[in-house]
């Protein structure tokens, strides 16, 4: 079983941190994983993305043309990565910053107002963790313990921040449960 993911957004939205947390969660689940951040002349406020691959056997392809899941945290990344979603793949779109628009009928769309949800929690910087929660619900195979451990690995001893991110993660996780979820069966 191989699954691949692209997380994308603008600089400062926590794209690389949440990508690294996702990769750590897979590692804690004893899976093979690779995490490739884009690197280049990207600047603050510019486009950022990373690709994560997960497998239960040795990972051979760490860069792929098409992926199973895309998370797009803004309009630019929605436009840029929609074509990267595999047939029957899923794209999670931050509808606070991107227009709800379905240009393909061979993929699943999940639109969630991630930024608005983060603002409700009083911190726009945890938009990324809400997105992770949404993805986690769809994947359905993480334990909350491993999610916590992954946050601790990245955020070290910043207990308050870890708590806030877990809260955000759970908001995302429950968002999918609460709302009508036809797209992600």
């Amino acid at each position, binding site marked *: 079983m191989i699954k691949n993911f692209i997380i994308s957004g603008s600089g400062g939205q926590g794209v690389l941190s949440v990508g*690294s947390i996702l*990769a*750590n969660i897979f*590692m804690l689940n004893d899976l*093979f*994983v*690779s*995490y*490739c*951040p884009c*690197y*280049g*002349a990207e600047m603050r406020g510019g486009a950022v993305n990373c690709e994560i691959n997960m497998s239960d056997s*040795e*990972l*051979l*392809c*760490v*860069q*792929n*043309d098409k992926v199973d899941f895309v998370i797009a945290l803004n309009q630019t990344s929605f436009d840029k990565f929609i074509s990267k979603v595999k047939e029957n793949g899923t794209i999670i779109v931050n509808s606070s910053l991107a227009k709800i628009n379905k240009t393909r009928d061979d993929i699943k769309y999940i639109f969630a107002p991630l930024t608005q949800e983060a603002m409700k929690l009083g911190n726009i910087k945890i938009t990324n963790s809400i997105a992770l929660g949404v993805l986690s619900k769809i994947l359905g195979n993480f334990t909350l313990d491993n999610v916590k451990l992954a946050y601790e*690995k990245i955020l070290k001893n910043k207990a308050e921040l870890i708590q806030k991110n877990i809260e955000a993660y759970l908001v995302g996780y429950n968002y999918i449960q609460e709302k009508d979820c036809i797209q992600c069966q």
Partner: protein
Amino acid sequence: MSEKQLLKGNIAIAKAALECGCSCYFGYPITPQTEIGEYLSLEMQKRNLAYVCAESEIAAINMALGAASSGAKVMTSSSSCAVALMQEGLSYACSDELPIVLVNVMRAGPGQGYIYPSQGDYNQSTIGGGNGDYQTIVLSPCNVQEVVEMTYKSFYMAQKYRNPVILLVDGLLGQMAEPVNFINNPYEEIDNSSWRLDGAKGRPSREIHSLEPEQNKLNQHILKLSEKYRYIEQNEQDFEEYLCDDADIILTAFGTMARVAKAVCNHFREQGLKYGVFRPKTLYPFPYKRLRELSIKAKLFIDIEMNLGQMLRDIRLGVLSNAQVSFVGKPVGDWLKKEEIISAIENIAKECHASL
């Protein structure tokens, strides 16, 4: 054994170097390897070790020469176009027989090129751009775990053979993070008390220099170096092979490209075609011996590289039978995808597939 950590290739190199007892690092920042220096600038200061952000790569390699002369374990790191600046220093280090570990995290060339990943420094590393009869040992890892293991091996071989070792890392691998089990350094310490320059109190003085005006002496020195290289070639060839025993068609690749080659091999195996993958782990000494053996049975070799065919020359030198040698490659940027390679091979190997 410690628990697994998710580490970027560059950070893994820096951590492993400290584990090896690297006491001096000299370098100048350049993408895609800057994290090595960044990490060491903090950690070496904490440990009271020597970290110098040099004013240029030429300065860095020459600082490395000086520190290695005194017996210190030395590392420098850089990338492609800046490693080009270090070629003179490497030739000196070979003649002076100084153990230096040089990490090259490759970017795109020629000239300034750009920061895109590439495997364009195979020739620069294995052949080199310095003057004279010299050789640097070149190791090529394919994942972050191996980056750690080969950093250990680089320090060991540099000390053992008193010769520079190049750890040649794909830009992709330097930037990519994978789970790493940080094993202990398995290699023994090499005693350098017989040659290092540590003050002549109570013993005759020593000199390390490559200048030798006397013709006979210079010839003898070069012949002695050559003997060392022949010994290395006999004893240090290292490779990985995947399903090669019964293979009709063998894919050859180094570094991370070998992983994609395995995926391609699996694809053709599923179709009942006997593919295998041969990956040199030491680019110098190149594993000719095993390649020759494999070429007795295999009918076709397809070399895959993120350049326009640099290792291809060594594959051609190694394949002694009537087996054909072909090539799939691309100069720089996004790594060749499994699908691209498969469709290229379907063209190249059409006749060969039909005959199997």
